[in-house]
């Protein structure tokens, strides 16, 4: 049987190795779809969040810096103008400046630095900034952390008075803004991932539904409803699957029906001539006494072998019904003791002694009485052929010990024959099996379908059959049928 590699598995070696490391292959299709959707949503939303965050941050900072720098230049000019007219009023100058958003001004003039607050001395400025502004005489700005809080420092040289003007602006508010933006973005990413997972769940259901339909249809077909088909679909991707499945189902149905019809036709074709034989033989038997002795002997042979042929045809038809799986048991609840006595009474040895144990006598089996009686009759035929008619015994008992609950019943047929060697005990139930004792069988009798049919019948009844030695060392074979049984 050809196996089809599942398509849709990863093709590129690198990705396959990666997927292998993640053990995606061990997950079900649905889990994989869900995981893929969630992963995709997570990556996409994280990327977008990071990009948004970076963009927001740089925009906010740029705007703030531009505003701060512009104001600082205005303030620096004002300080420079003030110093030029009256260098002694630096603190007044500082307090008169426009200082938005908690800016701290600092003026260094003639080796003294003046600030509005004593906390803001020259020491809070980074050295690199001071060097650039004071030593190189260039305006500069710098972001750094002051006491763990982000600040922006702007330094402008006051060239006309040989001083420097600094402004330190806290950026806390921007950090706060950015923090809340970040939190929102993380929240959005989490929600997006969850939504991705839900979408994955929904679409995986949608993807898997046709597969589930196909699986249900396949089970229905296997269960015997051969006319089961998938609904035709407009979906371009599923059309192929549906069409292929339905074609397969049709082919299977045709084949099974053809086999069943063949069996039925063979049955009819074989039974019709047997009908003529059976009726004609009866006409001849009614006139047996009028026949010469040789013709009588020939008639007896004819009668015996027509009966055997008839049995063989029945067995063959029954076994082909098993092969075509068209056997339907006609079940009834049967009292096991009564059933076995009746089955023995219609067998080839109606006088066979039957012993039914007290515990087994009240048990009920759910069985097709004709088929099971056939199984018992076949075991009796087998025993008669191997051990002779006198030695055949039938017993019915339960496998459970005294006091245990009864779940099964054992029907055993024993004979006086040589028994079945251990290595042949499986073999005897095969069709047309011939054991080592084939030569001991009556001319032409034996090899057939009898025991194979016993096994099929018993198996269909949920039981099993085996052969063992007779107990206590008595020579002979003991064939046992074990069937599920209940107390009546």
């Amino acid at each position: 049987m050809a196996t089809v590699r599942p398509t849709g598995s990863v093709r590129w070696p690198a990705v396959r190795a990666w997927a292998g490391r993640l053990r995606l292959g061990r997950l079900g299709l649905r889990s994989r779809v869900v995981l893929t959707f969630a992963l995709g949503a997570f990556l996409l939303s994280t990327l977008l969040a990071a990009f948004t965050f970076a963009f927001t941050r740089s925009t906010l900072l740029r705007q703030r810096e531009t505003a701060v720098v512009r104001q600082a230049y205005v303030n620096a000019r004002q300080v420079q103008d003030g110093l030029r007219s009256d260098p002694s009023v630096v603190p007044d100058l500082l307090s008169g400046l426009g200082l938005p958003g908690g800016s701290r001004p600092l003026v260094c003039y003639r080796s003294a630095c003046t600030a509005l607050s004593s906390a803001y001395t020259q020491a809070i400025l980074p050295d690199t900034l001071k060097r650039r502004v004071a030593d190189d005489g260039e305006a500069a700005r710098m972001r750094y952390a002051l006491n763990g809080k982000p600040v922006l420092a702007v330094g402008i040289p006051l060239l006309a008075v040989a001083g420097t003007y600094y402004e330190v602006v806290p950026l806390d508010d921007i950090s706060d803004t950015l923090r809340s933006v970040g939190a929102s973005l993380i929240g959005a990413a989490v929600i997006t991932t969850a939504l991705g997972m839900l979408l994955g769940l929904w679409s995986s259901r949608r993807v898997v539904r046709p597969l589930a339909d196909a699986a249900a249809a396949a089970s229905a077909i296997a269960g015997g409803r051969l006319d089961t088909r998938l609904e035709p679909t407009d979906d371009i991707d599923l059309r192929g699957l549906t069409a292929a499945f339905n074609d397969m189902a049709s082919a299977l149905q045709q084949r099974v029906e053809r086999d069943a019809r063949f069996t039925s036709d063979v049955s009819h074709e074989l039974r019709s001539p047997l009908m003529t034989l059976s009726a004609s033989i009866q006409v001849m038997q009614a006139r047996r006494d009028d026949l010469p002795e040789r013709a009588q002997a020939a008639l007896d042979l004819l009668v015996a072998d027509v009966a055997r042929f008839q049995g063989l045809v029945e067995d063959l038809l029954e076994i082909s019904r098993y092969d075509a799986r068209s056997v339907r048991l006609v079940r009834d609840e049967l009292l096991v003791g009564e059933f076995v006595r009746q089955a023995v009474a219609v067998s080839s040895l109606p006088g066979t002694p039957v012993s039914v144990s007290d515990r087994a006598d009240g048990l009920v089996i759910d069985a097709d009485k004709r088929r099971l009686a056939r199984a018992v009759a076949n075991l009796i035929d087998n025993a008669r052929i191997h051990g002779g008619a006198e030695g055949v015994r039938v017993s019915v008992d339960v496998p459970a010990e005294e006091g245990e609950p009864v779940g099964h019943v054992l029907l055993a047929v024993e004979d006086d024959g040589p028994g079945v060697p251990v290595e042949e005990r499986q073999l005897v139930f095969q069709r047309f099996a011939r054991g080592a004792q084939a030569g001991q069988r009556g001319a032409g009798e034996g090899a057939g379908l009898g025991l194979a049919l016993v096994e099929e019948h018993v198996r269909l009844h949920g039981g099993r059959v085996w052969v063992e030695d007779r107990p206590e060392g008595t020579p002979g074979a003991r064939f046992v049928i074990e069937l599920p049984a209940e107390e009546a």
Partner: protein
Amino acid sequence: MASPDTTVRATIAPVGTRILTVEDDERIRTSVRMALEDEGWTVDEAASGEAAVDAFAQHTPDVVLIDIMLPGMDGFELCRSLRRNSDVPIVMVTARADTHDVVAGLEAGADDYLTKPFAPKELSARIRALLRRAKPAGPGHHKLVFGDLEIVPDEGKVLLAKRDLHLTKTEFRLLCELASSPGKVFSRESLLDRVWGYGYFGDGRLVDVHIRRLRTKVEADPANPRHVVTVRGLGYRLQS
């Protein structure tokens, strides 16, 4: 397996009893006729359904034996066509013992069936069983009344709400068996034995299908039977 138990208590004398066998296979027809004639029956033959309809009108047989697989009008159709105006006992012969054929044959109106190849002695036993008359239900019971259902065994009459019902012989005998002990539950096995003369290995479907057919006649609403009642797991009983 030997043939099912076919003990028939009442003896029917074959003399003068006509059997129409409908069978397209000439060799089977001839051999079965010879065997049945040996048993003492008078046998008429028909090779097709159409010929059987004519032969039936001409000979008015006591029993008809129909092979299901016939060319043209098949056995089921012939059976239905005969049933339209006759209660003659019909035995279906099938080469296939599938559930479908047997039940379809019984539902078409057959009283019993046999599977090819059968022994002609077996067929004779079946015919005798079908020809047995309904036993009177007991002394002094000229008329049995179950609500709106009345049975007159001696006259072979059944009335539902004062209207005459047409029952086949087998349906009538089945009804009389149930009426012999009103209210008593009869198992399928005991009905098989009493009506058809089958033993332990008789086919219970015979009873089921005939009960179904009987209900379509004696029940006002066959889906909810009031007279012929199923007792789950046990059998059937007749009540008012």
